């Protein structure tokens, strides 16, 4: 039931041309007629590779906290 609800949501979002940012999209791939929209959030050009491109999370701004967390990797 839950999966069905997610499918409907994701399909509806895709039909409206809305870029899905919620985590549901990572589980259900909505069919796409065209390449994903190019995002310009925070200046990043999120590149479309083609209709079969898997969903990717929207880039988040590099706040000082995120920067510290990631810089700590190495």
């Amino acid at each position, binding site marked *: 039931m839950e999966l069905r609800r997610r499918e409907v949501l994701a399909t509806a979002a895709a039909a409206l041309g809305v870029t899905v940012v919620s985590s549901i999209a990572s589980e259900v791939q909505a069919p796409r007629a065209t390449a994903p929209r190019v995002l310009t959030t925070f200046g*990043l050009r999120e590149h479309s590779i083609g209709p079969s491109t898997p969903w*990717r*999370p929207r880039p*988040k701004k590099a706040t000082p906290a995120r*920067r510290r967390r*990631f*810089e*700590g990797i*190495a």
Partner: protein
Amino acid sequence: MSDDRRVVVIGSGPAGAMAAYELVRKGIPVTMLETGADIQRGALVRMVGRNLYRHLPPLTKATGFVVTGDPQTYLDYNYALGGFSNQWTAAVPRFCAEDFTAGEQVHEKYRWPVSYSDLAPFYEIAERTMEITADPSDVPNLPAGYCDYQHQVPEDWQSVRRAALKYGQGFTTMPLADGPPFLLLRRGTSFNSYSKLLAGLPAEPAFKLITRAHALRLEWDGHKKKAVAAIYCDRQTMAQNRVSASAFVVACGPLNSPKLLFNSACNDHPNGMGNGAGLLGRYLHDHPREWWAVDVDTPLTSLSPPAYLTRLPHASSDPLLASSWTLGAFGTVGKIKSRFGLKTTYFGVQVFGTMVPEEKYYVGPARDEKDEFGFPALQVHISFDESVLNNVVKAREHLMQLMQDAGYKGTIREIVHTLFPGTAKHYGGAARMHASPKFGVTDGFNRLHEIANVLVVDASCFTTGAEKNPTLTVMALAARSADRLARDLRAM
């Protein structure tokens, strides 16, 4: 020790410090000019070979720059003893042999005047000063270097290593100059180029350090046809002082070094020292950098020290376009977990891409604006083209595919947006090396083609930018050019 042979080194970052260290070791007296006053205070708690807590001091916000390329260009700077080594992640991979030769196939202008074998002994000189943790085995596209501490990637990551090998890539421990396993420091990094290289040098006359000395320009002698003095501003009194020397090693960083040479314009060099062919400042390049977090469906051992996935083979990549991946644990808990071999489904990735250096990206004197010393501000013009950004996007997909081949389904959870110039702090190329003055500002020993007693030894000398962290290669090049300079000066 003859004072006639005195060399002025400008900048105490890793490049300048390495050059000064080599010169003094070889009997050449050095005066160092450093615009900063002290090492920046930070904090480092390192236990059982993991940096459990690190507080990095803030960077100096750069002034005196005008951005005309990507408006989001980062221009952080660091006016402190030790330069950028106050903040760096201390990653020290060597370039591989092909990194120096791959560009030749694209164009003659991308031919480095040095080879890996020329540099190998100097890589080792630098590595022996740095207390590196690494895996001492060669892997594809990453030659092993000297390390004081050994670490192998955990056993359960071996399937990833095997999957990487099928693509011709290596998967190994990221070589890090992180120091001994236990440390408690009042600075943010174990390897600070001032502390490790300069603080232990013999005092005057062998080594003289002048702090708060902002180098403004080099003075040219039209009769002797060489640079004869460095003019610097004392930041305390704002008075201009002059220090003469037989040679000058410029290591102010990839943006400020060309600026110093532009400021040094004189009758014989009206467009700046080393700029007879109009190449000074041109071919500016940087690493596009991106961070993401990855979830995997099956837990894997937490990675600390981090692992390094090397680039795809040169033969199967677009010329001069490549990516490298650093995979590591988040936060203190992730690092403690790694000590006990505990597993996690979440790790962080840092990707460095490359860009093909092009003449259209440059630094140069700004027309109208002035810096705090009355010299023209530096115009910085750089942006990442579509091919560069696409290369980074492909890097995401490639790692996910590789993980899948290794039996793990990975999902990118979070991308942190840093895809604009300067975030990696890996600028380079603005005083590039080339055997021919037609394509380069400096020769194979970092000397200006036009003025043999002026050397540029920081990353501005890079002919092309490999996807690897540049600092170790910068230090090896600085050591090599200092070695040559010392030999030349002794022969005088």
